[in-house]
């Protein structure tokens, strides 16, 4: 009976309908009602997503909670949903982070607050849809549609240069997406199906695979973002309101990594192998180059944005070292460490980057500045906040015992198997990550009271403590005991590795 409930559809449409309800119910005069509806909707959606975990079958790599209905029958396009061990944690991440964002926006947004909250709810549904879609056109529709609320969030509630940031964000992502659509259409022309599982089986020549890989890469690399198509992200983060930054960093970037795993690798395994050198190179550039760039950022949000790019470098690195190991040893043994590490890194980064952006948001709400030089000695007036930010800063530096360590550790362990120097360069993050995070922490939080603004700061209130605690829990949990998460990932990652080890040529 319980099994008949279309759980994924509920998780997708409940927040979208809730968002519409918020729009209708909460005008400028009815903001409190809007908040309550928004919070209730987000919590309900989160609760709805929990059975995905509790009733998840750990023994299989098959899609679970599958729903399938014809949508556009003429082209065999289906409303086809399902999750496996790779997408399920990302769905729960999305529903969890949305609750956090609603709480964090509670009284911060003054203008068009109802629309703001509604945008996040709609966005939540669309993001879950993208993670759960098993039909490539359905995926594409969600993927494109979720740009719209994000575009509005930055464009309407953003900072002074929001127009520039929005257009840059839109052009980058839209350009990539268009190429992805071309690739999907080509694949349909070849195999006559839009089902992702069918695309995985489609035989393709190396040239076809390479072109398709590059077309997908245009879409996914922008989202991750990978160097050198990353420059939209710092601008978008700086102009976005806190909630927008949180969703952007915590969930939307993951869509890029998820796309690589779901589409690029299994559809074009030979091209992935062929181009793995380039992908590893770009990932290492992201880790090292961006690590250096992050050190010198004068703007806290920009610094964390660059730190995100550097951390996401681990996500892409972990995926493609699998191919190097395969090329060297002829088997995928040992490659799972990197791929699982990549996924753990994505999920962990979801919590940590959210927390870091919220920490900056907490300070921004009080002093309306993101510049490091406008702070100094915040610990004197905000000791509780300083303690929380210390925890998240250490997690951002990959401290063992926090989730930030797990993914990096696994990817470095995996890289060593591929090549000493890959591990060496990736390992530099131990130093760089600590340098940019803790140097910022030193200048912002430690020291004597920097100015009158800092002297007048009030410490975090109950609502702020609530969302910081809610984020601290998964950060510590995954750090101290990642076994449950690894259990979820294991069968699906193994299945993926088997898939990509078979040449399509």
């Amino acid at each position, binding site marked *: 009976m319980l099994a008949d409930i279309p759980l994924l559809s509920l998780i997708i449409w409940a927040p979208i309908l809730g968002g519409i309800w918020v729009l209708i119910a909460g005008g400028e005069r009815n903001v409190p009602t809007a908040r309550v509806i928004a919070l209730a909707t987000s919590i309900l959606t989160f609760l709805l997503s929990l059975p995905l975990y509790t009733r998840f079958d750990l023994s299989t790599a098959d899609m679970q909670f599958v729903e399938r209905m014809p949508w556009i029958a003429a082209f065999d396009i289906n409303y086809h949903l399902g999750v496996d061990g790779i997408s399920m944690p990302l769905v729960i991440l999305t529903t969890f982070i949305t609750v956090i964002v609603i709480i964090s926006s509670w009284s911060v947004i003054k203008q068009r607050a109802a629309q703001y909250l509604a945008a996040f709810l709609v966005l939540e549904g669309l993001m879950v849809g993208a993670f759960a879609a098993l039909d490539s056109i359905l995926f594409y*529709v969600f993927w494109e549609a979720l740009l719209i609320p994000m575009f509005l969030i930055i464009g309407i509630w953003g900072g002074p240069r929001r127009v520039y940031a929005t257009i840059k964000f839109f052009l980058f992502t839209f350009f990539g997406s268009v190429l992805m659509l071309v690739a999907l259409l080509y694949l349909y022309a070849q195999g006559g199906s839009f089902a992702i599982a069918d695309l995985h089986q489609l035989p393709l020549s190396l040239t076809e695979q390479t072109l398709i890989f590059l077309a997908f890469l245009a879409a996914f690399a922008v989202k991750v973002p990978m160097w050198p198509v990353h420059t939209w992200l710092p601008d978008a983060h700086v102009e976005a309101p806190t909630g927008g930054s949180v969703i952007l960093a915590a969930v939307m970037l993951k869509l890029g990594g998820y796309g690589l795993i779901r589409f690029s690798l299994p559809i074009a395994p030979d091209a992935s192998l062929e181009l793995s050198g380039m992908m590893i190179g770009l990932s290492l550039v992201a880790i090292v180059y961006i690590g250096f760039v992050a050190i010198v950022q004068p703007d806290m949000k920009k610094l964390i944005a660059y730190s995100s790019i550097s951390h996401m470098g681990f996500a892409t690195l972990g995926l493609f070292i699998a191919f190097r190991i395969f090329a060297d040893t002829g088997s995928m043994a*040992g490659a799972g460490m990197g791929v699982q590490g990549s996924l753990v890194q994505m999920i962990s980064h979801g919590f940590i980057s959210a927390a870091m952006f919220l920490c900056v948001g907490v300070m921004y709400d009080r002093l309306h500045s993101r510049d490091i030089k406008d702070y100094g000695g915040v610990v004197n007036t905000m000791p509780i906040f300083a303690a929380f930010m210390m925890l998240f800063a250490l997690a951002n530096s990959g401290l063992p*015992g926090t989730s930030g360590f797990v993914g990096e550790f696994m990817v470095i362990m995996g890289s060593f198997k591929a090549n000493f120097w890959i*591990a060496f360069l990736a390992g530099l993050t131990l130093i760089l990550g600590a340098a940019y995070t803790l140097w910022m922490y*030193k200048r912002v939080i430690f020291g004597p009271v920097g100015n009158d603004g800092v002297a007048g700061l009030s410490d975090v209130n109950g609502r702020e403590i609530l969302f910081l605690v809610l984020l601290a829990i998964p950060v510590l949990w995954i750090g101290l005991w990642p076994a449950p998460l*690894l259990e979820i990932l294991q069968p699906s990652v193994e299945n993926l590795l088997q898939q990509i080890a078979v040449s399509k040529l």
Partner: protein
Amino acid sequence: MAQNSQTMYLAIVLAPLFGALLAGFGGKIIGRVGAHTVTIIGVAIAFGLSAMTFKGIVFDGGPIYDATLYTWGVIEGVHLEVGFRIDELSSLMMTVVTFVSLMVHIYTIGYMHDDPGYQRFFSYISLFTFAMLTLVMSNNFLQLFFGWEAVGVMSYLLIGFWYQRESAIYANLKAFLVNRVGDFGFLLGIAAVLMYFGSLHYATVFETAPLLRELTIQVFPGVNWSLMSVICILLFIGAMGKSAQMPLHVWLPDSMEGPTPISALIHAATMVTAGIFMVARMSPLFELSETALSFVMVIGAITALAMGLVGIVQNDIKRVIAYSTLSQLGYMTVALGASAYAGAIFHLGTHAFFKALLFLGAGSVIIAMHHDQDIRNMGGLRKYMPITWITALIGSVALIGFPGFSGFFSKDLIIEAVHHSELPGAGFAYFSVLAGVFITALYSFRMYFLVFHGKERMSASVRSSLRETPGVVTAPLIMLAIPSVVIGWMGIESVLNGELFGHSIMVLPEHNVLGPIAANFHSAGGFVLHGITGAPFVLAMAGVGVAWYLYLVRPELPERIKQSFALLYNVLEQKYGFDRFNEVFFAGGARGIGTVLWRGGDAAIIDGLVINGSARTVAWLASVMRHIQSGFLFHYALAMILGLLVMISWFVIL
């Protein structure tokens, strides 16, 4: 039985953790007295149980414990676990760590009496004790790394405890980053272990190690290196960071910006010895690589000699002791390189007591001097602070290795052991540790004479208020002075006959440098008598004599020597220029690279040339794409929605 011991070991680790959490989160509620009570009870429980464990395993011949607590994660069949390995080596470390920690907790009541961060401080030092225990009790590399980084973080938080001081928050960031350089090597070493052994469990790795002895690895294409050498040297780089070996020593002197109790606990007795402990723990691996052993020995020898020399020119009481610690850590490292692991751990143990004693004694002096740490402003303190004076004297003679005191036994053992070593670099190491004896005596007694004897150089107002520090400060001094005297007598025999460490340390027959010493050993008394006739004793006495002559008899001489040897003095004063070099080359270099990549790479090339330059191309390309796909209904719909929203939002924004 096993269940009982597991509960007990858990209690050892968790008691300080609970104390820390209570004092940290409930500090406001339980107050100052509550905070120090819960943390002291926690650490006291840990110490009591550790001592019982030590007795049970070493004296009563109890079983070695090696079991998993919980599975951290399973990746591709590799079980990464959290668990304990309790044998002779770890139980000894547990006892030393918890004892010194307990003393420091008690001492802190007096030292931090007026500090507004009282509860926070107790929470931190208890949390540190927890981290240090997870490190030494681990049965696998992963948990070792957890503890390794956790003690680093606690050190970071404690050095920066007085966060309003610019020098403190500079020093703690520096300490953390330099340690991270070491950890970087350490993590690569762990990666190599995982890749070649397929496990991170000590017992499995140590068992398999001899089979992989001949394996080589190509770090540079075409160049074959012994796998064991690569693994051991990578692991040792971690030890160089944590145990402050050159050139990663630069953070330790600066760490003195932290409150004195943590200088004693973390930066003398426990955390800095983690590297020494780690190498001893890995003896089954290091024994397989003479290259790595030689490397370890030479690094240790350089550190022992060079850092001792810097100690002579320091004027801050804590910095003198800090350089002394660096030099003594060098001794331990030399011993490790000579395969005298037992000697290294023995010296680690004796050093923990007498160095903690010296630091706490210095803290006592600092309290009396109203937080003036310059030894040039002291002098003649023995009259005012008899307990501090006597205990500091005991600490000093133990440090210089005066026969009969604890430092003598361990240091003489190291010197003898290095003498027997036949590895490349042993000759240099032998010279360094011998010369180091003279230097140690010189800087130790320079400080001792300047502080406790001679003219009273402090201002009249300070002098009028000079008095012995309260009981919570002096009691730990006395408690530490006792082992500083007796622990050598008690330990030497069991170190040499192998009882103390049992099978927890592995030495190959051809590296057994302690064997010949053990063969000639009859009794501790005989060892002392032998020591009095040896070269180290003469050198130590010469050092004391020179210090006495220069700083008590002819106090104007040092200034003249300083001027005659200005160049040498400047080199030492500048600490060989490491700080300046790191500041300019690494810190400045990183900021320079970052700026160039940001302004040049991101802003000028990617955004400036490529993105803005191709903006029109993108628009053109997009329009072409749209034509290609215009046959599809859904795309029309999507484009319409998008277009509409772009227009709406455009309208809203403007």
